[in-house]
């Protein structure tokens, strides 16, 4: 346990009746970092967050928080004694209290007033103190919830899918703001999401969870470009999986010879991201364009290879490509192979 680690899970398990929500989960969170718990719904990510908060007690394993054991091995620290702030999915603002009273709730009454104003300014809502929660929009409610979580200067801030109830445009702008705010306060932040774009765009590190287990931990780049399993590869982005034959750092497949990120041998599935493929229009190419879906900022192209297999490609809008055209293709960079 070194000084830079703030949260650490060691073989933590949690069951609800007979369902195992979390099994043998281990990971560590560095002080001051912004970590995303990413996974499909029901993967145990929210339970993991609630275990950090102390809202659930683990059935086995051990949890460290800020240098002490908070759960496991007979130890138990109640949620109110953990110095953890939390933003709930729906904000969980107290409907019978004003915005200012909500933010002052975790504070000692004495130094409350000025701090509330500071926090409202921090989340970009000065002057809203006297409103009631039901008079605020969804985005404003989440800002107030964040201010309340930050009020007692917690060592850790937890966010449980805080943007899931907002519309797409608001979600994108608010998550940038939230990142800026928590970075400004220096609090370590863990947030739960099932939206890979959200996780990749604002997290320093991503913990990918499947079926109650940690599937991979890494930077957003690592998780996207070197997914540890096929399931992660398809969950964090679009992926083409091609049958091939590996020999050390080289592999052969329908697209020709490629360079692998890590050595492998024998029959493999090779994962190629759609945007890593470049196309060149030729008269007699290796593939034919089946269909083009145009999105404005880019386009998705569906290819049919000579052997009949399908391939997805992303490219910038190109006027020279049309459906039915023959193309040649190249793969940029290294690719990942999974033994078959």
């Amino acid at each position, binding site marked *: 346990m070194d000084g830079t680690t703030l949260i650490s899970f060691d073989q933590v398990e949690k069951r609800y009746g007979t369902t195992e929500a979390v099994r043998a989960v281990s990971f560590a969170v560095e002080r001051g970092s912004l970590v995303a718990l990413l996974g499909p719904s029901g993967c145990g990510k929210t339970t993991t967050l609630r275990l950090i908060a102390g809202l659930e007690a683990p059935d086995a394993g051990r949890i460290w928080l800020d240098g002490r054991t908070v759960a496991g091995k007979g130890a138990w620290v109640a*949620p*109110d004694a953990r110095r953890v702030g939390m933003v709930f*999915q729906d904000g969980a603002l107290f*409907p*019978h209290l004003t915005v200012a009273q909500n933010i002052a709730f975790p504070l000692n009454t004495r130094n409350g007033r000025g701090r509330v104003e500071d926090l409202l300014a921090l989340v970009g809502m000065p002057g809203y103190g006297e409103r009631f929660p039901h008079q605020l929009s969804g985005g404003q409610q989440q800002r107030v919830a964040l201010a309340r979580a930050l009020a007692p200067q917690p060592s850790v801030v937890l966010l449980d899918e805080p943007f899931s109830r907002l519309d797409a445009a608001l979600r994108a702008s608010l998550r940038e703001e939230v990142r800026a705010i928590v970075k400004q306060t220096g609090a370590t932040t863990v947030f739960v999401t099932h939206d890979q774009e959200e996780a990749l765009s604002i997290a320093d590190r991503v913990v990918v969870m499947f079926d109650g287990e940690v599937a991979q931990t890494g930077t957003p780049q690592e998780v996207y470009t070197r997914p540890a399993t096929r399931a992660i590869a398809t969950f964090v982005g679009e992926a083409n999986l091609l049958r091939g034959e590996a020999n050390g750092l080289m592999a052969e497949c329908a697209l020709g010879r490629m360079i692998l990120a890590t050595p492998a041998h024998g029959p493999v599935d090779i994962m190629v991201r759609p945007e890593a493929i470049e196309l060149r229009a030729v008269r007699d190419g290796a593939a034919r364009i089946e269909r083009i879906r145009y999105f404005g900022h880019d386009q998705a192209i569906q290819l049919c290879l000579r052997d009949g297999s399908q391939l997805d490609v992303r490219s910038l809008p190109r006027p020279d490509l049309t459906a039915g055209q023959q193309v040649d293709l190249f793969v940029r960079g290294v690719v990942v192979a999974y033994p078959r």
Partner: protein
Amino acid sequence: MPWLLALFALAVSLVAVVPLIYIVVRALSADPATWQRLWVGQMPDLLVQSAALLAGTIAFTLVVGIAAAWLVERTDLPGRGVWRVLLALPLAIPGYVAAICYIILLRRGGVVERLAMDLGGFARGEVPLPPLYNLGGAILIIGLVSYPYIYLPTAAALRAVDRSLEEAARMSGRSAWKTFRSVTLPLVLPAVAGGALLVGLYVLSDFGTVAMLRYRTFTTAIYNQFSGQIDRSGAAILSLVLVALALPLLFGEGWFSRRQRRLTADTAWRPRQLIQLGRWRWPALFAVTVVVMLALGFPLLVLGGLSIQGWLFPSEADRIWGINNEGILAFGLNSLVLSATAATLATLLAMGPLYLAVRFPSRFSMALLTLSRSPFALPGIIIGLAFVLLLNRWVPILYGTIFALVFAFIFRLLPQSLSTGESALRSVAPSLEQAARTMGASPARTFWRVTLPVAAPGIAASWALVFITAMKELPTAILLRPPGFDTLPVRIWAAASESVHTQAAPPAFLLILLTTLTLLPLMHSRLGIDRAMQDNL
């Protein structure tokens, strides 16, 4: 707005206010000397007595009701599933039956004294018995049968509080207890307050309990004025004052039940974490057991025991009173038929103003709903009184007939049908009815084929609650029953007013058996009693 429905609703609500208007007119047109006599001679005493009973009972039920709801919903109390149901059942026990049971237990020569003499070696008259015929006794007994009015809505509200609010409070550094005090309690307060006001209405309208315990309140004073005087305007004057006292409670209750809905939302899908009682486990279990024993166990045991004793070894008094199986069953049948008829008709009549107010909300339809609800402020004794006076004056031929009795019962039950039925109708999404209309169904057919079946569980629950009230109803029946038509409450009342309480045991036992058995299935249904309770009773 369909004019046929509007006309029906208008008729119901206009007829519903007639007794109230009549009482007001009669009281205001009374001889000023009568006012003077009552105002000076009776009013100060009655006000003090009623206020003391009101405050004491509300305080008692608040403590018992909130504590019971918290223990059952939020802690690891052993057997909480069973206690949850048992704690609600005293709702089925009329106050006068509980009073009779404790009189049998605690009077001189009663069960407790004889047991103490036999087992404890006390001499006759030396056994220390807690006095029942005073304020404390009235508070205890009314409190024991009315705390479910607080327990049920509080428990429902505790279940409905969004659990992330409590978790947010814990994350903000509050301990479990402080979280309960600063977040949970304020959130459930509207439900608690609404329940407390219902207890208040119960206390003000109660006649049987205070009559048996000889505690003087407005209802007993009205009865005395009515039965002992030739000029009955004195009773009308006292009634007017009592209604004036009850109205603020009624409006307050409506206000709180509307607040309730805005404050809570249910998003819980995880099982709530229960508070570990630890070493308080056994004291808590003991306390809950005591409440259930006092409110439910003793009445059932005492009355059941006496009924069986009278049946196996009939005494001289039993022979004089003619207590036998056929007699009791006949009274039971009378009660059942009367209550079922009145409850069904009240439920049907309530549908008119309710459907109008739910589907065509306007100032007109809301006014009709308020008008038809106004008899809620009228205790049974006043409804009975108004009917006697009205019938004698305008249609004396109906006085003393079964029609008059059924009619008065419908009035007594209508406000309750309106309250409990409203949530049932509101649970039907308008889109369901609109879909039926687009498929070519007429409004009447839509109501019959879509609205009614979807709302059926709620309406059934509402009917059952109204039915229980009808089964328990004493004063209306005393004042209006035709000669020879005895219901169970009337029979109990007759025996108790002759001070032969043991003779009241068999009908009382049968009565609470029937009401409890009606209430029991409601406790299991999800659309059941606590939903109805939350939308006031």
